[in-house]
């Protein structure tokens, strides 16, 4: 028998029992929609975290942090100079897998416009040009700091979006470039304004004209930056406060490096460790903090979410399959006579088998399609209530997977009714009232 004929017979049968079919499809609809929604949700979490991490420097970023030396080396702890510019210089020279090195010193001080307007306390950072690469900064206007700025110790500054908005409210970034900013009462020229960093959710809220009040802003620090050349920072702002420090011996507040090629991530870490071992005279007072642990934690939580969502969907699909089986069995006992007539005019048992099987696949497929529609609504709801920056992302492979599972549910649940129907004896069936 032509499969098209079986499909048209099946569709007619479904059309003849719309309500009953809808009820039997309910489980499939729920299963498919929850499966797609789960996939979209976890994809959103992954995507959100990935974007966030990327903007904070990505996997390539490795922070060299201070650590209490181990007790074995405690006595020698004084021998170590700590994290200094020497470390940065040594890593830059000797660790070939490291592409960028960014030493930073911070100063918490007052920042104001020329004439002392809008004063605020900000963390001012003295940085090298590599900072902009490692931090994946983007300029809204102007330029970044250059090696020349470092060499000359020039009084120039790059400010974050929040800082710029607070100091010069309502003025676009292009016009802020060239203005004078007072840092600890010393005039600096603003040479660049950084782009605004925001979570997807906040961006949406801003576009919609609403104020986002909720949640954690991972980019707050990034937007509140005031960046000046490292040398300027030292000579103009720090040396007065710490007269015993020299540029070489001064302890860094931050030391970040960027791994050039992630394929050589671990060799790169080994190189850094070896270099620091020498510069710190064997004292293990440093630690390499990578984003890998973070990434792994995120992965495992996504996996857990996906698994539990998948389990709920699987249960719904099984229940849906049983529902379809039930309806098909009812439909067969209603149609014994029809099956007998079909057999009498020459239908083979396998024709009957296929007819019932295709019918149950059609029911589940239809349920799957309705489930996709339902999932679209579900995802819309999730978008408005989803707690974080993790907007659900609907992907075609989620839809394909869900439809595949729906068809499989229909196929499996249709097997038994089909076998039962094709085993009907024509004579008994023709006498059946």
């Amino acid at each position, binding site marked *: 028998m032509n499969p098209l004929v079986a499909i048209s017979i099946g569709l007619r049968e479904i059309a*003849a029992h719309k309500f009953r079919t809808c009820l039997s499809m309910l489980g499939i609809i729920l299963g498919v929609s929850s499966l797609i929604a789960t996939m979209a949700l976890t994809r959103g979490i992954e995507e959100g975290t990935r974007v966030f991490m990327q903007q904070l420097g990505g996997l390539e970023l490795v922070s060299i942090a201070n650590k209490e030396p181990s007790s074995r080396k405690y006595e020698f702890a004084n021998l170590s100079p700590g994290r200094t510019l020497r470390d940065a210089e040594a890593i830059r020279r000797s660790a070939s897998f490291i592409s960028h090195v960014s030493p930073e010193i911070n100063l918490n001080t007052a920042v104001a416009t020329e004439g002392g307007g809008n004063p605020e306390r900000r963390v001012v950072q003295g940085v090298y040009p590599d900072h902009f690469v490692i931090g994946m900064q983007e300029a809204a206007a102007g330029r970044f700091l250059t090696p020349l700025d470092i060499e000359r110790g020039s009084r120039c500054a790059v400010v974050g979006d929040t800082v710029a908005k607070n100091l010069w409210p309502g003025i676009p970034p292009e016009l802020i470039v060239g203005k004078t900013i007072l840092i600890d009462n010393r005039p600096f020229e603003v040479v660049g304004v950084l782009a605004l960093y925001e979570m997807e959710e906040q961006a949406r809220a801003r576009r919609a004209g609403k104020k986002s009040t909720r949640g954690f802003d991972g980019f707050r620090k990034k937007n509140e930056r005031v960046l000046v050349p490292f040398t300027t920072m030292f000579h103009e702002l720090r040396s007065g406060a710490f007269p015993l420090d020299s540029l070489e011996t001064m302890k860094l507040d931050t030391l970040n490096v960027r791994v050039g090629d992630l394929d050589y991530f671990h060799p790169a870490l080994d190189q850094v460790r070896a270099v620091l071992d020498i510069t710190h005279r064997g004292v293990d007072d440093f630690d390499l903090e990578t984003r890998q642990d973070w990434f792994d934690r995120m992965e495992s939580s996504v996996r857990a979410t996906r698994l539990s969502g998948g389990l709920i969907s699987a249960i719904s699909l099984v229940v849906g399959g049983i529902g379809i089986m039930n309806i098909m069995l009812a439909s067969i006992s209603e149609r014994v006579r*029809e099956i007998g007539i079909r*057999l009498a*005019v*020459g*239908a083979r*048992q*396998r*024709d009957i088998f296929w007819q019932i099987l295709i019918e149950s696949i059609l029911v589940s497929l239809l349920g799957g399609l309705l489930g996709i529609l339902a999932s679209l609504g579900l995802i819309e709801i999730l978008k408005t209530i989803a707690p974080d920056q993790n907007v659900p992302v609907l992907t075609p492979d989620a839809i394909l997977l869900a439809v595949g599972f729906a068809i499989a549910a229909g196929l499996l649940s249709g097997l038994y009714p089909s076998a039962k129907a094709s085993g009907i004896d024509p*004579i008994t069936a023709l006498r059946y009232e």
Partner: protein
Amino acid sequence: MSLIHLEGLSKVYRVGDQEIRALDEVNLRIEEGEFIAIIGSSGSGKSTLMHLLGCLDTPTAGRMEICGKDLAKASNDELARVRNREIGFVFQAFNLLPKLDVVSNIALPLIYAGVPSHERLARARKAAADVGLGERLSNRPPQLSGGQCQRVAIARALVNNPRILFGDEPTGNLDSATGRMILETFDALHASGKTIVLVTHDPAIAARSRRVIEIRDGRITREYAP
């Protein structure tokens, strides 16, 4: 060679410990173009014989050749094929599908013969016209009278151009006037060369055939020409 050739055909049902010999060593030859009536009272085995001849059932023992093929041990698929191509069935209770319209009912055997859809419709219309059902093709069986239903059933039986037409009490559910018209249709089909086998308990109907076979207790007891 005979169109139908039965030799020692038996059908035994087992009900609990009891053996019921519904057919007991039946021998019968039916030639192409014959008009035969199988007559017997209820429980005589005539329906069993009909079901065996109609390939709806398989015998317990014996040979059953239809159109030159031994079908006593045939597979279900082979039997389905014979039912589809070589045999047309007309039942007492019409056995039409109430959900389908007249044309689709008539075209039903063509679906299983693998005939493409446009040809199915054309052949179904022609078969309907052949039995005098020119109109009401888009009606559904419940909207038709008994006589019309039986005509639809006959058209369905003929649509695949089978060599044998079986009638199982085809007038049993009809009033006598309509029944006569149906029997006239059978007469006409016989005249056009079809082999016709009628099963009935009514001697008056059997009298229209050329050869009557009487069955009692699963055996052929008498054979005569009316």
